[in-house]
């Protein structure tokens, strides 16, 4: 009977090597290496992702897409109108408003958006074709039209990784446009989020639009205020609980996006 190969020394060698590389990667020593691999394979990734998108979009109802686009535009107009009303009121009361530092929108193509079923399930991250060399920094927000998409969490010289707002590791402050009820958005995967830590006294109901409250740091990085996050689909209000919470669904179809815009701080 043939003696079975002893693979234990090989296993130990690669185990130690993997642990070593894992440890060294915490020191961000491999960023340039990652950047080169990403840059080399990014054209193929782009073609693959766009091919999957065009195949699944082929069967989608054109009317439905137009209706969704129109709905998205109407929501944007509604949000802008509410903001104008508030600004008008603030000016009338002679409040001072602070201006954000000048921003620069950088369009970026999505190279990769892994999900369970491509273009049907929702992804939780995007890999885009812009990186440090394009003056993107960790913490820069990603948007699409007036909707918040996510935040840059990792980057190489050529590519960046964005955690979507629906990613389970994401949380940020948000508010309702109607009553300014403030809460914390937590991602739940798919297109689902939870608006938690809402005061019991706050007025929030189904169909309320949720926008970002804004958490820009001193360098101007983070989520800008008043960007559309989603819509409330249900409210959970228990008298015995400290806070109420609401289920929020994103109005963006992340699986159908091919381009996002990064808000750079110059």
């Amino acid at each position, binding site marked *: 009977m*043939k003696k*079975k*190969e*002893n*693979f234990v020394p*090989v*296993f130990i*060698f*690669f*185990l130690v*090597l*993997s*642990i*070593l*590389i*894992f*440890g*060294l*990667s*915490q020191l961000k020593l*491999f960023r340039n*290496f*990652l950047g080169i*691999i*990403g840059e080399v*394979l990014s054209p*193929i*990734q782009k073609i*693959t*992702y766009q091919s*999957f998108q065009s195949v699944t979009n082929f069967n989608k109802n054109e009317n439905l897409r137009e209706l969704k686009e129109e709905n998205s535009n109407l929501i944007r107009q509604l949000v802008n109108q509410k903001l104008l009303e508030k600004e008008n009121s603030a000016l009338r009361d002679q409040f001072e408003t602070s201006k954000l530092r000048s921003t620069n929108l950088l369009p970026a193509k999505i*190279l*990769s*958006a*892994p*999900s*369970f*079923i*491509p*273009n049907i*399930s929702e992804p*939780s*991250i995007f*890999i885009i074709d812009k990186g440090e060399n394009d003056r993107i920094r960790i913490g820069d927000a990603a948007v699409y039209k007036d909707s918040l998409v996510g935040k840059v969490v*990792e980057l190489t010289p050529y*590519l960046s*990784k964005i955690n979507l707002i629906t990613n*389970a*590791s994401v949380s940020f402050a948000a508010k309702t446009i109607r009553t300014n009820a403030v809460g914390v958005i937590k991602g739940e*995967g*798919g297109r689902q989020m939870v608006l938690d830590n809402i005061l019991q006294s706050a007025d929030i109901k189904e169909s309320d639009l949720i926008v970002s409250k804004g958490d820009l740091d001193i360098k101007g990085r983070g989520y800008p205020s008043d960007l559309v996050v989603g819509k409330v689909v249900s409210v959970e209000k228990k008298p015995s609980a400290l806070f109420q919470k609401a289920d929020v669904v994103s109005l963006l179809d992340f699986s159908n996006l091919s381009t996002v815009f990064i808000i750079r701080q110059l």
Partner: protein
Amino acid sequence: MLVLSIITLFLFILLETTVTTIPLLLVVILIMAVVSKKSWIFLIAFILGILADSLLFNMMGKTSLFFVIFLFIILSYDRKFEIRTVYFVLISSFLGSLFYLIFYGYNSIFMQSFLSSIIAAILFLAVKRILKFDAKSKLAI
């Protein structure tokens, strides 16, 4: 056969790092380990792990670590059972995918693991037909 393996590997790397979260690389490594039972598979697993980490912006070495440990467990079973069967491939790919998806915090873990085990079984049966081997035959790869 080598050309086909390389094309399949490349395709699966592209799919897993671009459009899907189903652990296709794990499936490929499992099939290669079960069919070849050689220690060079650890090198392949290591390289695939590094590639996957670099394209998905994971911590370098994380996926390689998982693959190497997974392979060790699979090949350890060879000492006790016959692993070159579709039943072993089905169960090990399901469990391996389940732990992989939990490790990375993905959603729909049971559905994805189930689908991954189906893909593994189909791939294994295809390789078995191409290479014309059975559970006990000596396969010089």
